């Protein structure tokens, strides 16, 4: 069942007009039929009354002279009035004086004459009237009229009304179809244009103004809005075009400077390492005594030169590393390997440095860990950095490296009993060059880039690094790495 509000405006307008017409027609046809029915009766009685009047006055002389035949003759004039069934003339005593019956055997008894009256029956009307001569009652006349016609006429009227009704509806329908056009047409056009604009995105399309009524106003506002949108869009396009040009220029410039930066990095790397190469190399040769024996003081000072040179190299490496990471130039070479082996190697290589400070360095690795699939060298770099830091910032106690799995990821904790990190520094400890601001003892030499590099590398390996620390108690650095699905097929 379709609801009225879902109909198109066109159908709504047509149906409104049709229903209005229908209602009015039903109303008036009803009144017409009703009055038809009643008029029939009053017409019949008025005719009967006239007939009674004429017949009565024509019968006066017959009544006065007791001439029954003359009265019967008068009544026989009714022969021409085909619907008169019976007619009777009574004398002043109420006795039958003369009678007329349309069918000879259909006598009708009007009963006793007492007063003038008119009665409407189902199929006949009866009228009785006094016959007056100079205001003196000389007799009665009674008429009976066939009313069976009344129903036929009513049916005929209903039928005619029905035809008129149909004609009215058809006419109303045609008219309403014609007349709704200006309204539904403009609304339809508006809707169609709106749809076109929606689909094409072309805001230059305009709706033709067709009238000055509310729809016309709507169309006007619609066109105004379209123009505004069009202008706005053009403005936006222009802005986008301008910005695109600017961005392209900026991008070219950025790429250029990026290229220059990487070229600069490559050349700096070479230029800085070349002299260091000699310094470290020759210091090493001298220290080993390959170029002749050294005094104790000379050895000590050369050792300082070597230490400083190594530190300088470390700084250069860190700066190059962070530059490479920040410019996205670090490539990750994933491979499958056993984490316990890597950890044991890293811990063993750093144990001498821990022991030199009187610290215990141990590891605690969960057995049966699955193979890790990630960049082994980068992970090793991070681990060595974390363990190195732990050794650097711990004076007494121990450093533990824990390795275990949790859900789908691997956690490596580096726990120390060192100086710890204050709460206000915890948030910034992984930021570039942060060590300088912490006011930590500058004796703990480093570039301050180690943790920033570590964080960036771990993130590059799709992992995360966090720290928990309490000043004076120690710090725990945790690396969480996902056990990525191994895509290579190598097995050992």
């Amino acid at each position, binding site marked *: 069942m379709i609801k009225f509000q879902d109909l198109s405006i066109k159908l709504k307008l047509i149906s409104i007009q049709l229903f209005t017409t229908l209602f009015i027609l039903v109303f008036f046809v009803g009144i017409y039929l009703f009055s038809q029915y009643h008029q029939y009766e009053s017409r019949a009685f008025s005719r009967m009354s006239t007939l009674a009047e004429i017949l009565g006055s024509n019968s006066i002389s017959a009544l006065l002279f007791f001439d029954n035949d003359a009265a019967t003759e008068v009544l026989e004039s009714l022969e021409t009035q085909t619907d008169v069934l019976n007619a009777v003339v009574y004398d002043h005593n109420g006795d039958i004086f003369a009678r007329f019956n349309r069918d000879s055997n259909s006598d009708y008894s009007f009963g006793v004459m007492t007063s003038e009256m008119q009665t409407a029956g189902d199929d006949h009307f009866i009228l009785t009237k006094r016959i007056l001569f100079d205001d003196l009652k000389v007799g009665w006349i009674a008429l009976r009229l066939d009313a069976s016609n009344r129903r036929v006429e009513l049916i005929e009227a209903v039928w005619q009304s029905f035809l008129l009704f149909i004609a009215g509806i058809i006419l109303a329908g045609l008219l309403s179809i014609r007349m709704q056009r200006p309204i539904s047409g403009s609304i339809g056009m508006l809707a169609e244009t709106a749809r076109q604009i929606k689909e094409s995105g072309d805001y230059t399309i305009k709706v033709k103004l067709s009238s000055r009524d509310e729809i016309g106003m709507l169309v006007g506002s619609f066109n105004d809005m379209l123009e505004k949108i069009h202008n706005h869009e053009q403005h936006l396009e222009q802005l986008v075009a301008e910005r695109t040009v600017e961005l392209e220029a900026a991008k070219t410039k950025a790429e250029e400077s990026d290229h220059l930066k*990487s070229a600069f*990095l*490559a050349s700096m*790397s*070479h230029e800085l*390492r*070349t*002299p*260091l*190469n*000699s*310094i*470290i*190399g*020759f210091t*090493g*040769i001298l220290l*080993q005594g*390959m*170029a002749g024996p050294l005094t104790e003081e000379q050895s000590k000072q050369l050792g300082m030169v070597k230490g400083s040179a190594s530190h300088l*190299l470390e700084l250069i*490496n860190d700066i*190059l590393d962070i530059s*490479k990471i920040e410019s996205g*130039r*670090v*490539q990750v070479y994933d491979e499958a390997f056993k984490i316990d082996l890597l950890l044991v190697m890293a811990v063993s290589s750093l144990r001498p440095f821990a022991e030199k400070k009187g610290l215990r360095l141990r590891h605690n690795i969960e057995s049966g860990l699955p193979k890790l699939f990630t960049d082994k060298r980068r992970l090793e770099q991070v681990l060595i950095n974390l363990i190195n830091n732990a050794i650097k910032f711990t004076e007494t106690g121990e450093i533990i490296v824990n390795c275990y799995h949790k859900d789908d990821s691997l956690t490596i904790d580096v726990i120390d009993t060192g100086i710890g990190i204050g709460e206000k520094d915890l948030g910034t400890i992984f930021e570039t060059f942060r060590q300088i601001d912490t006011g930590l003892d500058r004796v703990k030499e480093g570039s301050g880039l180690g943790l920033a590099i570590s964080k960036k590398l771990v993130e590059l390996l799709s992992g995360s690094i966090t720290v928990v620390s309490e000043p004076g108690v120690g710090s725990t650095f945790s690396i969480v790495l996902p056990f990525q699905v191994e895509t290579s097929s190598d097995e050992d």
Partner: protein
Amino acid sequence: MKIKTLIIEDNENNMYLISFLLQNNNHEIHQAYDGQKGVELAKALIPDLILLDIQLPKMNGYEVAREIRKDESLRDVPIIAITSYAMPGDQEKALVAGCTGYIKKPINPDTFLEEIESYLD
């Protein structure tokens, strides 16, 4: 029998350092200060070992390695790249160009000789 070693390196200090370390360890040293000279010497000497710096004048280390590998008689000579490049892929590039292995600069006198040994049969 001394090991005939060709060093192709443009930096005089490094050349001296490497030469010094190897001379005292049974190497017969031949020196080339640019890539072109290095290729010429390699062809002339057919050395037992070539130490090759990557950043060189006239012809860079990768080109030198490729050029040397073209020579039938130099096909099996170990070439060890001395890379100071810190950019990713440098070492891989060296291997692709035909080097046997690489040693990272700066050279550590404590381990340098061992590393060299490992590339000689």
